[in-house]
C-alpha cells in the first residue's frame, strides 16, 4: 500500500475525528460537571441537523445560507437545552443515576418520534456551502474540501473549550464543581445556574455538530444512535469528563475507523471496540480518566 493512499485515509480519519470530537465534547462536558450521562446528546445532535435543514430550506439565502442556518439552529438547540434542563434534569439531581439515565433515555424516545413526525423517514441533505464545494487534490487523490471546514471547526471548538475550562473564571468554577460540588456551593456560587448553562452549552455544541454533518453525509433517523455509540467509545477510551481525553479518544476512534474501513469495511466498528477493550484492560477509567469516587 502506497503512502498517498494511506495519507488520504489518514486525512479522512482526522475529519471523522473532528466530527466525533464535536459531538463527544458536549457529552463529556455535561457529564464532567453535572455527573449526568446524557443519552439524549445524540438525539440533540440529530435534531440540530434536521432543524438546520429546515431553516436552510426556509430562508434560502444564497452563499451564506448554510452558515446562517447553522448559527440559528445552534441557538434553537440552546433553547431546547434550557427546557430539558429546567423542566426535567433539574428535578432529578438528587436522585440516583439510574433514574437520570432512564430520563435521558426517555428524551431519546421522544425526540426520535418528534423527528419521525416532523420530517418523516426520508434522507435529507444540504449541498456543501461555498467555498467548500469542490475537492482538493492530496497526492493525486481527490479530498473533499468540506472536510477541512469540519476539521477547522473541530479545532476552533477544542481551543474554545480549552480556553473556557482552563483560562476563565467560569472554567475554574467548572473544574471545581466537577471535583466537589458541595464546596463550590458553599462558596456562594449558584450551582443550579451553572448546571443550566453547562447543559445549554452542551446542547449548542450538539446542535452545531448536527448542523455541520448535514453537508458531510446525509440526515436521517438513526444518525443519533450511530454517533452516540461511537461517542461512548471515545469517552470510554479517553476518560469521561476529560477534555484532553475526549480529544485523544476522538483521534483514536476516527483513525481506527478510517484505516479499519480500508482493511475490512464490515468490521470497522468492531476494531474500535477492540481498541476500547484493550484500553480498559490497562486503564479501566480511560486514558485521562480518574477512578470513580
Amino acid at each position: 500500500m502506497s503512502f498517498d493512499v494511506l495519507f488520504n485515509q489518514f486525512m479522512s480519519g482526522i475529519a471523522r475525528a473532528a466530527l466525533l470530537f464535536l459531538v463527544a465534547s458536549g457529552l463529556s462536558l455535561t457529564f464532567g460537571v453535572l455527573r449526568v450521562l446524557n443519552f439524549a446528546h445524540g438525539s440533540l445532535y440529530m435534531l440540530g441537523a434536521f432543524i438546520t435543514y429546515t431553516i436552510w430550506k426556509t430562508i434560502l439565502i444564497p452563499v451564506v445560507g448554510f452558515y446562517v442556518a447553522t448559527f440559528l439552529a445552534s441557538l434553537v438547540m440552546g433553547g431546547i437545552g434550557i427546557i430539558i434542563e429546567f423542566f426535567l434534569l433539574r428535578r432529578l439531581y438528587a436522585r440516583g443515576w439510574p433514574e437520570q439515565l432512564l430520563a435521558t433515555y426517555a428524551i431519546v424516545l421522544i425526540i426520535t418520534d418528534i423527528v419521525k413526525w416532523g420530517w418523516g423517514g426520508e434522507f435529507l441533505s444540504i449541498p456543501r456551502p461555498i467555498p467548500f464545494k469542490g475537492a482538493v487534490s492530496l497526492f493525486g487523490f481527490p479530498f473533499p474540501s468540506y472536510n477541512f471546514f469540519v476539521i477547522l471547526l473541530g479545532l476552533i471548538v477544542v481551543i474554545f473549550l480549552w480556553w473556557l475550562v482552563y483560562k476563565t473564571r467560569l472554567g475554574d468554577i467548572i473544574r471545581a464543581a466537577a471535583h466537589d460540588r458541595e464546596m463550590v456551593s458553599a462558596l456562594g456560587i449558584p450551582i443550579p445556574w451553572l448546571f443550566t448553562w453547562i447543559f445549554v452549552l452542551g446542547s449548542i455544541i450538539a446542535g452545531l455538530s448536527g448542523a455541520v454533518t448535514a453537508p458531510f453525509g446525509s440526515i436521517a433517523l438513526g444518525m443519533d444512535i450511530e454517533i452516540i455509540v461511537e461517542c461512548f467509545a471515545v469517552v470510554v477510551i479517553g476518560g469521561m469528563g476529560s477534555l484532553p481525553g475526549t480529544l485523544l479518544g476522538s483521534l483514536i476512534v476516527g483513525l481506527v475507523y478510517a484505516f479499519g474501513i480500508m482493511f475490512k469495511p464490515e468490521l470497522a466498528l468492531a476494531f474500535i471496540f477492540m481498541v476500547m477493550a484493550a484500553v480498559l484492560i490497562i486503564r479501566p477509567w480511560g486514558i485521562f480518566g480518574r477512578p470513580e469516587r
Partner: protein
Amino acid sequence: MMQRSEVGVNNSAVKRGWWLILLIIAFLIAPFVISKFYLTILCEALVMSLFAISFNLLFGYMGQLSFGQAAFYGLGGYVVAMLVTKLQFNFWLSLAAGTGMAGLVGLIVGYFCVRLRGIYFSILTLAFGQLIFVIIFKWHKFTGGDDGIQGVFPPEYLRSIEAYYYLIFFVCAISAFILWRIVNSPFGQTLKAMRENPERTEFLGIHIARYQLIAFVIAAAFAGLAGAVWVPFYRSVAPSYLTWIKSGEPVMAAILGGPSTFFGPVLGMFIMTFVHSYILGFTHFWPVIMGTIILIIIFVLPGGILEFAKVKITERREKANIAKGQT
C-alpha cells in the same frame, strides 16, 4: 436482625404460596378462556418477563445497570433461527444452543464489564451490545443483515398458538423458579452484599469480579433463552431485537414495577406489553408514549409500583400497631 428477616422470608413464602398456585392455575387455563389475540400478547409478556427478570438479577440484586441486555436476547434468537432454518437442527437442542451461546458471549463481554461500576458499567454494556448488533446487522451473508431471518418454524406438535403457549409458560416458570432460588441462595445474598458495600464484602474474602462475572453469565444465558424461545413463536428474527431500544425495555419494566422486588419487573413487563398492544391499535408513535410513561413513573412513582405498594402496606401496618399499642 438476621433471624427476624429469615422468619419474615418464611412467613411471606407461606403466604405467597396460595396466590402463586392460583396464578399458575390461571395461566394453565388461560388458553381456554381468552382469545387467540390476547394469548399471543400473553406469550410476549411472559417471554419479556423472563428477559426482565434476567436483567434485574444484575440491576436489582447486583446493583449494576446493563444497557446491553438485548444483545443476549437477540443472540439467543439468532442462534435458534440459524440452526433451525439453515441446518434443520433439532428444535430442543437449538434452544439449548441459543442459551449456551448467549452465556458464552456473556462470559467474554462480562469479563470486561465487571471491572467497572456504576455509569461506566452501563456505557460499556451498551457499547458491547451495539457492537454485537452491528456485527449481525452488517454481516449480510451470514445473518441476513437487516432482512433478518424468516420462516423459523417449531416442530409440528408446537405449531398451534396454544401448544406453544404452554411451552413458553413452562420455560418461563421454570426459569423464574431457578432464578428465584439463585437470588435467595447464599450466592444471591453475596450479590446483594456487594451492592450494599463492595469494600466490606471484599474484606470478607469474596472475589467481587468473579461473583459478578458469574451473575453476568447467568443473566446473559437466561436472556438468551428468552430470545431463543420467542423467535420460533414469532417465526422470524430481525436485528432490531438487539438494539439499545430493546435493551431499554427491561430497564423500564424494572423501574416501573420496582427493581427491589423479584416480581416487580414481571409486573412492569405485563403492564408495558398490554399497554403497547393497546396503543398500537390507534397510533404508531409508541416510543413517544413509552418515553412519556418513563418520565411520569420517575416523577410520580420513584421505586416502582410494588415498592410503592410495599411502603403503603408497611405504613398501614405500623399505624395499626400504634393504634393497638394505645388501646
